[in-house]
């Protein structure tokens, strides 16, 4: 079945709403407008305004209300237009959603799912382009998902809704139009493990390319081109940024002996920093080269196309890092 990432997301929402009457979608412009990224287009007509609930511009208020509704037994899916705006709701996400279970000694779990877009590449300027999911991955009590594939766009939501704890889903804005084949009966997928999407055959130079979300397509392309140069790659899609599936990473590095982490966040204090640290802590003697990182330049993402592209990870930069790792020169 031919579909897009956006349609897969919508199918997941529809499926969840049909399966469980406690599920409802709430956020700015999710209803009449159809979702600012058109993910929920048509769902208002299908499910009505109680369950496809437009909210005022009140990120803290409606995210907090979602947390309260989860405490009250509902299964809210709260949409925040972009990760930049989620900062207005940080208090509710970090001080309430992530802490209530622990502070209450296990009495109050918060089964909320919060979805938001992340990432750059569409010339939207700094306040609509940042990748802050790595920050959220810093917070105990949250689970952080980054669906990069059609299967995950279709399948992660239902699994997230089964999770008794708060789950944040980050959808890279450049993925919504990605089209491809998805099984007719595609459904829920696990959210505990990273995926090895491509495996080096072991001959010649090898490297593990580690990424997630919006940078996966360019990493896959880099892997293709690298194989033409005789460099074989494992491509790992992290899928879940917290808790991290370190096993899959270490297992791959033990075979390839090199790692390149590709992350659209800034390098300083990023999820890629955490991954590099884990590899050096736990696989140091497997490594034949320092861990490489390809991240965004440390600037607010600029508007002008050439500047924006210069700030972001690219196929060229990933290939250069992989070549450095295998000693083939940058």
């Amino acid at each position, binding site marked *: 079945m031919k579909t897009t990432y956006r349609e897969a997301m919508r199918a997941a929402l529809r499926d969840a709403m049909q399966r469980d009457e406690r599920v409802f979608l709430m956020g700015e412009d999710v209803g009449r407008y159809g979702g600012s990224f058109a993910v929920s287009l048509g769902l208002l007509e299908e499910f009505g305004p109680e369950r496809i609930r437009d909210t005022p511009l009140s990120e803290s208020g409606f995210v907090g209300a979602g947390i309260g509704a989860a405490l009250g037994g509902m299964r809210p899916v709260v949409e925040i237009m972009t990760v930049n705006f989620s900062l207005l709701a940080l208090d509710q996400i970090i001080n309430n959603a992530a802490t209530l279970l622990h502070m*209450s*000694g296990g009495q109050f779990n918060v089964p909320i799912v919060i979805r938001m877009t992340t990432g750059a590449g569409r010339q939207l300027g700094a306040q609509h382009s940042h990748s802050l999911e790595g920050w959220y991955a810093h917070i105990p009590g949250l689970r952080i998902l980054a669906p990069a594939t059609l299967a995950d766009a279709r399948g992660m939501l239902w699994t997230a809704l089964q999770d008794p704890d708060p789950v944040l889903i980050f959808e890279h804005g450049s993925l919504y139009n990605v089209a491809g084949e998805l099984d007719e009966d595609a459904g829920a997928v696990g959210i505990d493990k990273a995926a090895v999407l491509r495996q080096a055959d072991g001959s010649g130079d090898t490297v593990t390319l580690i990424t997630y979300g919006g940078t996966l397509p360019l990493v896959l392309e880099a892997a293709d081109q690298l194989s033409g140069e005789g460099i074989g790659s494992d491509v790992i899609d992290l899928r879940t940024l917290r*808790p991290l599936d370190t096993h899959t990473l270490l297992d791959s590095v033990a075979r390839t002996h090199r790692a390149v982490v590709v992350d659209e966040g800034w390098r300083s204090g990023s999820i890629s920093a955490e991954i590099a640290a884990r590899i050096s802590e736990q696989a140091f003697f497997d490594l034949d080269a320092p861990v490489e990182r390809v991240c965004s330049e440390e600037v607010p993402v600029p508007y002008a196309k050439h500047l924006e592209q210069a700030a972001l990870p690219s196929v060229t930069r990933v290939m250069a890092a992989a070549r450095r790792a295998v000693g083939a020169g940058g």
Partner: protein
Amino acid sequence: MTTLRNQGVPDAGHAMHLLRQMVRVRRLEEKCIELYSAAKIRGFLHVYIGEEAVAAGVMEALAPEDAVVATYREHGHALLRGVSAGAILAEMYGHAEGCCRGRGGSMHLFDAATRFYGGNAIVAGGLPLAVGLALADRMAGRQQVTVCFFGEGAVAEGEFHESMNLAALWQLPVLFCCENNLYAMGTALGRSESQTDIALKAAGYEIPAWAVDGMDVLAVEEAARRAVDAVRSGGGPHFLELRTYRFRAHSMFDPELYREKSEVAQWMERDPISLLQGAMQAAGQLRDDEWAGLQADVDAEISTAVGFAENGTPEPVSELARFVYSDRPEENNSGTDISKEPTKGGAAG
């Protein structure tokens, strides 16, 4: 003014009950101060002394299935909602027998059995939660009410306004109870708000709102019953501004440089406990032996609670990482958390 504004004491049994409830909160917190001074309990400690009529009056209007959201000054709310004094004190001791197994402390009391949702130490942080609890009730078709307590300091926060707007827009079954004790730590209301009439702010969101004498437990109870009935019967959110005063410092660390002792003394003449006690005595509803008996009962309750807390067991450190995520089947726990040392190996996904 040293009399109850509300004339006419209710039947003796009910008046006794209200008096007892206020005395329970007072004695519990006097004990907390003692235990704090003896370094038995630590952290921030904010007492409610002087404001007891608010929690005592409002709780009377609630049914067991209703929900309560409170702030960090919530010992009284928790106690009168039905959490035992023992569980509250054990929590402050950091013991496993505490209502949150020692993870919450004074500012974070929670209790699922009585639908007591804290215990929030972020000023205004509980308001959106109350809106959401009410939303859940509305969507599930339950006739329940959520009551949200907060100080007047919260009305300057954005979350206050966002919550008023959402609750009114969606006509949710929530009762907002603003405990206006005139000070947010050391900041007097008039120094933080351009409009100091708080009920008027709520009215600006089309929410029915009244200001109530928060030192008069009968007035509080009457207003709360009226408001809760209106909310429960589908009247949408309601708002009470309860005008009260805290007799003690903001917390145990507060040198109270911001207000005159004479102002405190003046308010103490309207001590909610003395007011009701005096009115009952004047109406012949409280004999000296009954008053002595009530105090003895409460003292016994509190000393039993102290014994319970004192003999509690520290939550084991081996349990430290519990309740960060919900317990779930092993297969779902295969991911490693940043806090844990992962072991090498395992199948590639």
